[in-house]
């Protein structure tokens, strides 16, 4: 649950029922979206109780805003945007709140190479080509790659990312949202989203490479 595939089926009906005060509709919506909201909230706090408070506050804002929700955006992107605003307001570090779109813009400036420049030859005829090839992962069994252990390494790498990168990779790759939903929820441009996704994936890839070399 919580993945995109299941969110659109019958959602308009559930919303209509919810507007009539139908508790079962509320439970169904919670069931559908809880995992996503919780994961997003966990991007802002390592504390499960605080994350759950953020999720609760988000649901309250959703209920209160229900009559104004026009359905122009999908429900999950609307809720994600509410959650991000709540989480950012609560988080002391980001309290002086730079909008995420500004953080995203900053990312476009300055260099942040996807791969350590030392991995490439600095001069000669083959300048810019691999000095040492990346590891071949085709020998890594899929059940090892998709074991919880490797995901835990990726998760730790995500936790070290800057906030805008963290949000984008979580929504795109962990939750499997399409680009347009991520851009709507985070209020960033498609180009910005791709820069953030690129840098985030590059860092996670590096962490996985470091890890898989040891095992």
């Amino acid at each position: 649950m919580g993945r995109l595939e299941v969110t659109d089926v019958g959602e308009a009906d559930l919303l209509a029922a919810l507007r009539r005060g139908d508790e079962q509709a509320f439970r169904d919506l919670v069931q559908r979206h809880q995992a996503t909201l919780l994961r997003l909230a966990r991007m802002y706090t390592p504390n499960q109780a605080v994350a759950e408070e953020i999720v609760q506050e988000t649901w309250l804002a959703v209920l209160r805003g229900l009559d104004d929700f026009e359905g122009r955006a999908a429900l999950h992107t609307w809720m994600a945007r509410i959650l991000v605003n709540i989480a950012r307001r609560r988080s002391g570090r980001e309290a002086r709140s730079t909008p995420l779109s500004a953080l995203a813009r900053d990312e476009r400036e300055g260099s942040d190479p996807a791969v350590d420049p030392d991995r490439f030859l600095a001069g000669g005829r083959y300048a810019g080509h691999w000095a040492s090839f990346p590891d071949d992962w085709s020998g890594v069994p899929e059940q090892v790659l998709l074991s919880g252990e490797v995901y835990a390494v990726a998760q730790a790498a995500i936790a070290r990312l800057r906030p805008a990168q963290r949000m984008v990779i979580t929504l795109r790759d962990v939750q499997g949202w399409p680009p347009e939903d991520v851009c709507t929820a985070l209020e960033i441009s498609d180009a910005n989203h791709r820069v953030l996704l690129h840098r985030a994936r590059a860092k996670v890839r590096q962490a996985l490479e470091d890890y898989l070399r040891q095992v």
Partner: protein
Amino acid sequence: MACSELVEIVTDYLEGTLPAAELARLRDHLTSCDGCQAHIAQMRATVRVLRSAPEDDASPALADALADMFHEWAGSR
């Protein structure tokens, strides 16, 4: 195309947003570069790892809190 250039456009490539001319240069490079093939395979594998995330479980306390919150909201409408 240098490998150091390819690694910066690999996400555009995987997202299918690379302009045609660059796409042709990238494909041309890939045919003769095992290193970049391995790099792209790593990027694809990284995405598969991320998609394998287990769901986070909410505590029963959250379900109770949401139920209370709903009743209060429904009662005030």
